[in-house]
């Protein structure tokens, strides 16, 4: 709380702070699903009157969508996190393979102030915001996820990128001893153009549903780029590298004809093997139409003015 009050007092209207009770309720609901009898035995009042969110105060963001949020259970049990297993249920079962503490993120390459941020420092760089974003997977399904994080731009500014820097590469944690071998060229890497990385929508996420980011969702810190297919948002990031040349990413190496550098959500450009025109929102029965830039066209279309998005897929 004090950090936020020092920085941007106007932003922190009491009404905007998500009451911890809301999250407490959610957690209680999840616990209840596991054991109705136990939860039922707890006095309701007692369950509410507990500690605030483990991440501290969280500010709501005008960039959030008002669509109904995907269930916590679905977000945390249906994951593409190949380091922890290639089946969608695997990551939640293999959380012991990744230790999120201690953790540090190096910022290196074409920056004037290369440095390493501990995870605790990242949590204090800026007021934590709740960003409720749509997430569209390249496989044709989508979710609405209440992330908690800070704009990536904040971090980049502190590192002071050099004039020649044009791209930002994100390198994920990889432990050869315990994690998946083969399938992709490890460690996982992803990249954005510098202007994409600096875009206000681009988030460095540290939490989910007001809680510390679960391992299977990319703990302790991951990228979230809501207008691109999910795989562009690297998980469990250990290094952020600014470069002049466009990095070759893990999926580009794995399938250059199927996964391009940009990978913007685009209903008109199909994956070579399946259509991207529609998607199934997890929890819904019928499919819905996929929106250009995943519905963020108003905010991001200008980044791609004059570009042939069919060629730059």
């Amino acid at each position, binding site marked *: 709380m004090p950090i936020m009050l020092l920085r941007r007092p106007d932003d922190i209207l009491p009404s905007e702070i998500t009451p911890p009770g809301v999250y407490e309720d959610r957690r209680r609901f999840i616990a209840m699903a596991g054991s109705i009898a136990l939860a039922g035995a707890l006095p309701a009042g007692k369950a509410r009157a507990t500690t605030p969110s483990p991440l501290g105060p969280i500010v709501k963001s005008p960039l959030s969508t008002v669509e109904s949020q995907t*269930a916590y259970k679905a977000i945390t049990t249906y994951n593409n996190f*190949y380091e922890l297993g*290639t089946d*969608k249920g695997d990551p939640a079962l293999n959380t012991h393979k990744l230790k999120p503490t201690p953790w540090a993120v190096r910022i290196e390459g074409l920056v004037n102030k290369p440095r390493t941020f501990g995870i605790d420092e990242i949590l204090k760089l800026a007021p934590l915001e709740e960003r409720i974003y749509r997430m569209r997977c390249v496989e044709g399904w989508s979710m609405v996820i209440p992330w908690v994080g800070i704009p990536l731009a904040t971090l980049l500014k502190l590192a002071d990128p050099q004039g020649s820097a044009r791209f930002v590469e994100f390198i994920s944690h990889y432990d050869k001893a315990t994690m998946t071998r083969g399938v992709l060229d490890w460690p996982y890497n992803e990249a954005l153009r510098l202007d994409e990385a600096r875009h206000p929508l681009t988030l460095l996420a540290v939490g989910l549903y007001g809680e510390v980011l679960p391992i299977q969702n990319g703990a302790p810190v991951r990228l979230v780029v809501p207008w691109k297919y999910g795989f562009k948002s690297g998980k469990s990031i250990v290094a952020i590298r600014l470069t002049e040349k466009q990095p070759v990413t893990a999926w580009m190496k794995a399938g250059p004809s199927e996964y391009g550098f940009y990978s913007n959500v685009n209903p008109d450009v199909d994956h070579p093997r399946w259509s991207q025109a529609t998607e199934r929102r*997890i929890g819904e029965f019928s499919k819905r139409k996929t929106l250009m830039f995943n519905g963020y066209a108003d905010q991001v279309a200008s980044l791609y003015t004059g570009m042939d998005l069919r060629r730059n897929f």
Partner: protein
Amino acid sequence: MTPGKTSLAAIKAALFLLCLTPAFLLWRGLEMDSLGANPIEALTRSTGEWTLRFLLITLMVTPLRKLTGWHWILRLRRMLGLFAFAYGTAHLTTYVWLDQFFDWEAIARDILKRPFITIGFVALVLMAPLAATSSNFAIRRLGGRRWQALHRAIYPIVLLGCVHFWWLVKKDITWPLIYTVIAIALLGLRAWWREQERRKQLAGGYLPQQPQYQGKVIKIFAR
């Protein structure tokens, strides 16, 4: 070891229930909402994999019979083949109904445009005449030799099934690879047997010393 009429009936009944188990578990999973965050995908994926598994199990009957001498297991093959078709039909149904929700235009586009869907669809279409001619009546009507020739369509069908699965997965091809290796082994074994038989015949002294099944029609239904 040849079971009597009653034991064979009991074995068939038990096998029937066993073959229904995956369907039952899927149904219960749907009802209890335990198929994960994307139950429609789980259902489509599972029925598809069971189709491929049943095709492979069906193809295992003949090698198993030759290796063990249990000729009676041939009597179980029809049921296994029909279950492959049933799971295949369920697979297509989940796609048409739950995945595309009877959007025939989108389905037609998919079949024409997506090679992996084209191949899966072709495989299922090829299975239909096999399922339709699985009755004793059809075997008699077609004549054993023609019936057998028709039912060799299972060889390309199983390979199409493997390719369909292989092209569908995003990156981790472990399971498509496993199924394909099994399919190739089962088909390779047949090719090898055939070659051995051909050589034997070419070598001249082709004297059937024991009951020969090669090239003969074996009655697979009880009279």
